[in-house]
């Protein structure tokens, strides 16, 4: 039985009413529930309710060994599942002091960036679909199909990958994957130009997203916002540059940042990040070193007692894996700091004063994956 704090709007002369932007809605991608208090069409208060997709990943971690827990991080944020998978592996490697061979790091970077592009395709296009343009959404899924085919060649599955292992990756990349990725990079660069022509120059789109949902720098930092949402508000924070991990120090890429903090700024940051990801993949493919793809790690690992906090950048923001080990094969506690959890809370601060249509636009531009909030 759900008890929701409601206002009594049975009085027909009352001005303010509550609307459930409800767990089932075409635009809340995932099961997200907002209780909006509206005055006509202007939002007076916005209250996010979460917990509809809670699966107990953190409790599961206390009942499984480290290897048995490998499939779980992928399913938390299934859109950047490979990044989560690698992040968990890297956190445990940090705890145990395992050194990962160079080729494995490069493969991890290439597949992470492909996953990031695929996730951004959904994130950006869901935002545009929330505004009403359905065609770019279908184009974005076409690009995503190419990436999913590529990743299926190497990882074996299309959405929930479990390709990383402690000490490296499971198997080597094939020549088919290599050629396919090269072709994909060229194709994607042309498609980015098409997207900019279709969406970014469109005056209706600009009018719908400019000065909508302005998030100031101070508010963003105070609310713990990270990722493209923070970079759209003027803070150039990206874990790949601020706390480099894996093979990222060896690549040259920029962190696109914009100052305005509105929906248009966040959209442009994500589009610019697509280009940067393509640059990283190209550099990694050029310099791919030969060698082993997995370090020599015992089959059942037992990390020493201690704790580690490892932070990495998923498509949505800075994820943190906090692993506490007590010396046995089963972790004592794994806490996942999910970026969508903090990002969605800021909506209760920036939505009031906007129209109902803008709430959908703001929610789309923040780009949240709901199962990651609930874990």
């Amino acid at each position, binding site marked *: 039985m759900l008890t929701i704090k409601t206002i009594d709007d049975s009085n027909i002369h009352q001005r303010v009413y509550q609307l459930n932007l409800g767990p089932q809605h075409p635009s809340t991608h995932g099961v997200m529930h907002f209780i909006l208090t509206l005055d006509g*069409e202007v939002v007076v208060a916005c209250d996010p309710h979460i917990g509809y997709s809670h699966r107990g990943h953190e409790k599961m971690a206390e009942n499984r060994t480290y290897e048995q827990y490998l499939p779980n991080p992928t399913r938390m944020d299934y859109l950047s599942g490979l990044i989560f998978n690698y992040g968990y592996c890297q956190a445990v490697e940090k705890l145990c002091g395992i050194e990962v061979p160079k080729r494995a790091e490069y493969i991890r970077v290439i597949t992470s960036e492909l996953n990031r592009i695929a996730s951004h395709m959904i994130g950006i296009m869901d935002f545009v679909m929330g505004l009403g343009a359905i065609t770019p959404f279908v184009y974005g899924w076409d690009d995503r199909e190419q990436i999913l085919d590529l990743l299926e060649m190497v990882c074996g599955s299309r959405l929930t990958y479990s390709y990383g292992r402690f000490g490296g990756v499971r198997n080597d990349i094939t020549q088919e994957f290599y050629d396919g990725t090269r072709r994909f990079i060229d194709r994607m660069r042309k498609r980015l130009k098409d997207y900019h022509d279709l969406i970014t120059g469109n005056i209706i789109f600009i009018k719908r997203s400019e000065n909508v949902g302005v998030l100031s720098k101070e508010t963003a930092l105070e609310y713990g916002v990270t990722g493209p949402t923070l970079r759209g508000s003027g803070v150039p924070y990206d874990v790949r540059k601020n706390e480099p991990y894996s093979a990222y120090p060896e690549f040259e890429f920029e962190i696109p940042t914009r100052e305005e903090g509105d929906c248009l700024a966040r959209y442009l940051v994500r589009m610019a990040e697509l280009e940067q990801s393509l640059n990283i993949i190209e550099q990694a493919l050029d310099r791919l070193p030969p060698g082993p793809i997995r370090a020599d790690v015992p089959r059942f690992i037992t990390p020493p007692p201690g704790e580690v906090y490892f932070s990495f950048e998923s498509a949505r923001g800075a994820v943190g894996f906090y692993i506490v080990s007590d010396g046995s094969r089963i972790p004592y506690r794994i806490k996942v700091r999910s970026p969508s959890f903090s990002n969605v809370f800021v909506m209760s601060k920036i939505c009031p004063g906007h129209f109902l249509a803008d709430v*959908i636009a703001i929610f789309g531009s923040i780009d949240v994956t709901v199962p990651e909030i609930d874990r």
Partner: protein
Amino acid sequence: MSQLIQLWNTVYAFLGHDVTAGVIGLLILLAFIPLHVVFLVWFEMKVCAHIQLRPAFMEVGPHGILQNLADGIKMIGKDLITPKLADKFLYFIAPIVIFIPAFVGYIVIPFSPNLLIKDINVGVLLIFAFSSLTVLSVLMAGWSSNNKYSLIGAVRSVAQNVAYELPLLLSTMSVVIMTNSFSMREIIEAQSPVWFVVYQPVAFILFLISTTAENNRAPFDLVEAESELVSGFHTEYTGMRFGLFFLAEYTNMVIAASMATALFLGGWRGPFLPGIVWFFIKVYFLIFVVYWIRWTFPRIRFDQLMNFAWKVMIPVALLNLIVTAVVLKVL
């Protein structure tokens, strides 16, 4: 057989020429329009699919032509659910009120020099009067559904329809004062050397934008915005009731395109081919443009919509009317 002819003669003598012609014409239309609308829905889905670089349905019939017929049959077989706290009478008659006036507009549209049910001397006004009844029906549907989303959609629709009536009428007036007549037949006959779109390009564009807004088509479709309001005023309607709303929307679109062809593009005028073929070519071209716009642009927000109507379209329409009047007086 002779009894039938006798029956027919008494009916004809009783009703008179006009009413009989009207009734027969409406019956033909009643059979013809729903099939036409089903074809239009197929056309829209194909246009949408090819813009999105995918082949749409290909299975039911060649290139999926029978798909919408199958959808229609399925829709007829669905359960008609009424929400418990809905206002039963209004909920029941709202789809009927939106569907029937759409037919009345077809009486005055000249499909070809000979195919015209009845030429009324205020034909243009008749179409406008009956198509304004859709606002009433939308409001009834939204209010009686007992659903906040429907109500928001209905309220938006009323404001939008009222706002866009004015540029519609003003741009039509620019054509009417050029021909001194409200009758559709006379307007088409007056376009003999040159179509009116050459004389009144601004009015043509205003007319197209206004009818897109009146029919709640994108980019003005916030009334039934799927990403925000689930389905707007027809969220709670199921089965054939939803089918009636759907049919009414497409019927209104055909009437709007027919009016645009008659007023600006010369109606059935054109070389070589018979008049009715030209008429349908022009109507389909305009409908194709409306579909094209829908699948390319995002949706406008409500306050921007109202600003656009009251602050941009109405002044431009008024200016156009004044310039037309002055030029006609001077020349």
